[in-house]
């Protein structure tokens, strides 16, 4: 039992939380602008992870540097997707209706495409690398430096995002847009520009999270799915589109997952995640902080 109370486990949970929070924030931003659930979010993360991997292997740039590149690539993909595909489809009403009602299937197809393209390009072997593997001694706990980096970067990113959305004009405009699209347009907020920025931000966060994950775990083309599911659980837990909910949900899920599998066994980790997922959708689909849905 004293193992449960150990700081080691607490630290694991915190590290996982910071990854989950970033992932959930990214997904929430994408959902908030487009009202579309990006099933390919986890695969974007894997892409970010591959950027980090290849940066180290080919260019010798460590993750601290390449994570910005991963985020940038994510944002670029978001830009291309939004500007050239989504905008065109959504402005044409015939496609817009089909896109929205079948959005899950379409993004599911996109996810399969991205996964298999990555598999073709990079082969399906798991990739991992050693970076900042030195052990840091923090008194009672010993932890790899890379995990500390994940925690620190995650917290820093989340904090700056929260501040951005709270205090900057752009951030406030984005929140207004997420809350009430039409009303925001009425008061003069340029919906398209802000949508584009937020969308790219969401995708960029996915890339960043993936780069962080690649430091501590091996990445494969098909490994994104579990993160996608976790992200879905989190944003539904916190309420769709609710940014604070995403943060709370991310921490909550990470803690449930780590402590749950510590109490039972690591083999049950997936069952716990999916179990929470199903339970939340049945008992409280609007999430802990969300409003009632039909």
């Amino acid at each position, binding site marked *: 039992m004293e193992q449960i109370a150990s700081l080691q486990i607490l630290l694991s949970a915190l590290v996982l939380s910071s990854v989950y929070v970033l992932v959930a924030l990214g997904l929430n931003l994408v959902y908030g602008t487009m009202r579309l659930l990006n099933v390919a979010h986890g695969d974007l993360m894997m892409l970010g992870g591959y950027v980090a991997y290849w940066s180290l292997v080919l260019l010798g740039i460590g993750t601290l540097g390449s994570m910005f590149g991963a985020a940038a690539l994510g944002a670029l993909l978001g830009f291309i997707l939004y500007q050239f595909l989504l905008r065109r489809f959504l402005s044409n009403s015939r496609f817009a209706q*089909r896109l929205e009602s079948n959005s*899950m299937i379409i993004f599911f197809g996109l996810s399969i495409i991205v996964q298999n393209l990555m598999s073709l390009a990079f082969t399906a072997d798991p990739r991992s690398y050693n970076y900042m593997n030195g052990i840091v001694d923090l008194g009672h706990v010993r932890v790899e430096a890379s995990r500390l980096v994940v925690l620190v970067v995650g917290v820093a990113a989340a904090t700056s995002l929260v501040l951005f959305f709270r205090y900057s004009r752009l951030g406030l405009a984005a929140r207004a847009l997420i809350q009430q699209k039409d009303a925001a347009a009425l008061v003069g907020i340029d919906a398209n520009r802000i949508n584009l920025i937020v969308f790219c931000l969401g995708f960029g966060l996915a890339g960043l999270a993936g780069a962080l994950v690649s430091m501590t775990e091996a990445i494969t083309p098909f490994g994104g799915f579990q993160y996608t599911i976790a992200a879905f659980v989190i944003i539904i837990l916190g309420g769709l589109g609710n940014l604070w909910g995403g943060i709370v949900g991310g921490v909550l899920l990470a803690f449930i997952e780590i402590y749950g599998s510590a109490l039972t066994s690591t083999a049950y980790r997936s069952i716990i995640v999916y179990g929470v997922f199903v339970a939340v959708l049945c008992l409280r689909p609007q999430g802990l902080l969300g409003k009632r849905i039909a």
Partner: protein
Amino acid sequence: MMVRAPAIAAGLIASAALCLAPLLLGAYHLSVLFQLLAFIALTQSWATFSGMTGYASLGYAAFYGLGAYVMALGWMVIPLWQLIPLAGLAACLLALAIGAVALRVRGPYFVILTLGISELVRYVVVAVEAKFGASGRVLFLVPDMSFLYFIMLALAAAATAITWWMGRSRIGAGLHAIREDETAAITIGVPTARIKTVAFALSAIIPGMVGAVWILRSTYFEPAQVFSPAMSFSIITMAVIGGSDKALGPIFGAAFVVLLSELLWARAPQLYMVVLGVLLICFVLFAPEGIYGRLRTAWVRTR
């Protein structure tokens, strides 16, 4: 829809050809045909519920997998003729359980909930199997291929018949109403909750039986593989490509995808999946009525 003489004749010829196939074809082609029939049965069942109500279920692998699991557990213990319906029954019960939970939510929530439940079932079965100490089960002394072929043919025919019948029945009309506008349907008195549950449970029976028969063919049960989301993805793709509205649509979709897989899968499985994904997206956006729907529109225009 009036059934014309040429269509009936074509149908009879096709049925005769299918019945004679084990005598005419070699082992490889027979197994391809077997696979095609299995996919037709699965896709028809998907269309029975998801095609008609518009509630896209990403979790059909759960029913298929459960049927396979029942067969894997019961083989050699329970006679075949009882085991196959038992598999169907088990899948039906699972559908009732899932439906009680999942059918309360709509739209995208339903889609990811079915996916989540299917994955949950997968991991639970893997854990249960681990408890039994089995990481996969092998089936011995399985029936001969031609025998299995005829069972699968019967299942495919049954599935098509069910889809056809549903399309014309009152329940089918209710399901269509749900797809068009569920709130309006409730308002005019359609018992939406009841028919959704009935259709969902009904649509799970055939996949359960297909899973059971399939596992006899492959003789190996591995939970992680049998419950994989790739199976759900394939089924949806076939339904979308072929058209999920009328009974003949899934036949076209399954045939198309099996043909594609024969060409590509052995050589470049990832490319195959990419092509499949691209096709899925294109069909959803540009041709939601599927190949069969397009053919019908073209046929009507030429009259």
